[in-house]
């Protein structure tokens, strides 16, 4: 009897413990998306709360009437502004991700092949900027890239150029900003993959006469694929929706989708269209997000073994 009561207690205790984070994430993470989805189908309304109700009770017919509004999505498809913005955001995110990989891979590789004592020092140096304000680190680039900024002034002083270059408010500035801010997210998964490699494979390849370059492309690179994929997803997905970097460093004639979304939301106060933009962005990123989740699951399973 006592035993049964105890089992029951443990069972309820377990449910309760599971329930706490479950409830929180359901309420504050999952349900909000449903609300965004719902509002993306409603009509804009000038008074609070900014959107008309989807369902309303009609007294005469004694029925609930749904007033769905598909025009928020039609706008996205018809207006070339939105399509262009989506394409531009994907382009910027993709180019930045590739640049990030090109900068991050050699760094991760060098750290992974360091003696263990210096390894931790370098890792800390990579992570340290991440602990300082992201906003201020992006801001620092304004001072470097400006027409009379540090880079232009140095190049002028050295006599390499005789006209200041336009660096700020260009695509180039956005690439730099994204690579700079997201570099640790690229390096860390790459490092944790490269560190686990079995170096005897490379020795075997060398014994059999393979050149270092050849064994890199035939052994190290294929083995590090999971790290490459994870790092690229960690950079690409948030970069598509990036808002701070393009609004501080980017062009003014071509906006990114994150900027358009907040302009619709705060400027035009058109919540339904902003919601439709958010849903479209989410659908676009669904496959990359699911890929990332699969990677994350595998990593944790591998750690458990």
């Amino acid at each position: 009897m006592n035993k049964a009561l105890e089992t029951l207690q443990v069972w309820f205790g377990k449910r309760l413990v599971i329930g706490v984070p479950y409830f929180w994430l359901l309420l504050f993470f999952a349900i909000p998306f449903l609300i965004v989805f719902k509002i993306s189908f409603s009509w804009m309304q000038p008074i609070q709360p900014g959107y008309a109700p989807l369902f309303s009770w009609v007294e005469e017919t004694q029925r609930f009437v749904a007033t769905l509004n598909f025009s928020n999505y039609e706008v996205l498809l018809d207006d070339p502004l939105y399509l262009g913005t989506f394409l531009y955001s994907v382009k910027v995110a993709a180019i930045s991700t590739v640049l990030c990989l090109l900068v991050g891979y050699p760094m991760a590789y060098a750290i992974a092949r360091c003696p263990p004592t210096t390894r931790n020092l370098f890792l800390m140096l990579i992570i340290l900027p991440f602990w300082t304000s992201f906003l201020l680190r992006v801001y620092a680039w304004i001072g470097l890239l400006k027409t009379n900024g540090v880079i232009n002034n140095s190049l002028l002083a050295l006599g390499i150029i005789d006209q200041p270059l336009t660096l700020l408010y260009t695509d180039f500035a956005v690439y730099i900003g994204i690579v700079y801010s997201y570099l640790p997210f690229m390096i860390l998964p790459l490092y944790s993959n490269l560190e686990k490699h079995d170096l005897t494979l490379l020795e075997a390849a060398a014994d059999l006469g393979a050149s270092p370059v050849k064994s890199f492309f035939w052994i190290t690179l294929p083995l590090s694929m999971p790290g490459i994929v994870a790092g690229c997803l960690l950079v690409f997905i948030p970069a598509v929706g990036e808002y701070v970097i393009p609004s501080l460093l980017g062009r003014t004639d071509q906006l990114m989708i994150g900027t358009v979304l907040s302009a619709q939301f705060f400027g035009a106060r058109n919540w339904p269209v902003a919601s439709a933009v958010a849903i479209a962005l989410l659908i676009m990123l669904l496959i990359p997000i699911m890929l990332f989740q699969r990677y994350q699951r595998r990593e944790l399973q591998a750690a458990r073994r």
Partner: protein
Amino acid sequence: MRRGWFRNGMLGLGLAFLYVPILSMIVFSFNNSRLVTVWDSPNSPTLRWYVRLLENDQLLGAAWISVLVAAMTATGAVILGTIAGLVLTRFGPFRGRAFLSAMTTAPLVMPEVITGIAMLLLFVSLEQLIGWPEGRGMLTITIAHITFAMAYVTVVVQSRLAGFDDVLEEAALDLGARPATVFFRITLPLILPALVSGWLLAFTLSWDDVVISQFVAGPGSSTLPMEIFSRVRRGVSPDINALATIMVLIVAIGVVLSTLYMKREEKRREREEQMARRDGNG
């Protein structure tokens, strides 16, 4: 030897890329000129921007709000993230486990604008429906921050828990300890380093966030990043350089201190383990 040359060069260049912008901010924070990037050598270095910063009540007030929000966020995120990490690694299969796992990893990569708009619309709908939360301010910012910060804490706790097997916990349960006792006496001390780094991580994430805060903040609850963002958008100003320098300094000191602390703890634990093993054998 020749092979190491290329990769070490790249590492050096990469580190320079990471640190030159920060260093340039620090250097120019002591510059007298209002033209942020032109060095006014006769009158520099100067502390005038630091003095002006300390007189700026608006920034100081925003900084205080940020500290409060970040501290509450970190505490809440560590509690919820620890439970979620524990449930996902130690509770075996249960219904809805995959969904919980998906909900804890999605915030890691979700673009901030999407999370921001979703959170705000939730708060607006909730207020219409049940009258809570009343308006928007520190409470709504903290709730939003906890939600994305707990995802990071969950990952940290999960990988720490995955790092050691559950024989100790099993043994204690077999000897008749209650699950709660096992958690507080065995699991918690073992994952304590993960909780400390999780707390610091959550604090920084909250302290750093501008996009989500902007969506869910109300009048009079501007955080420091929101203030900085609106200033920086209007143009560069030298007191922001001074602010950045102070923040870099605090972070550097904090990271060095916590690393030293963790190293010492780790050594102490190793020593104790060795002693316990020796006593057991002798």
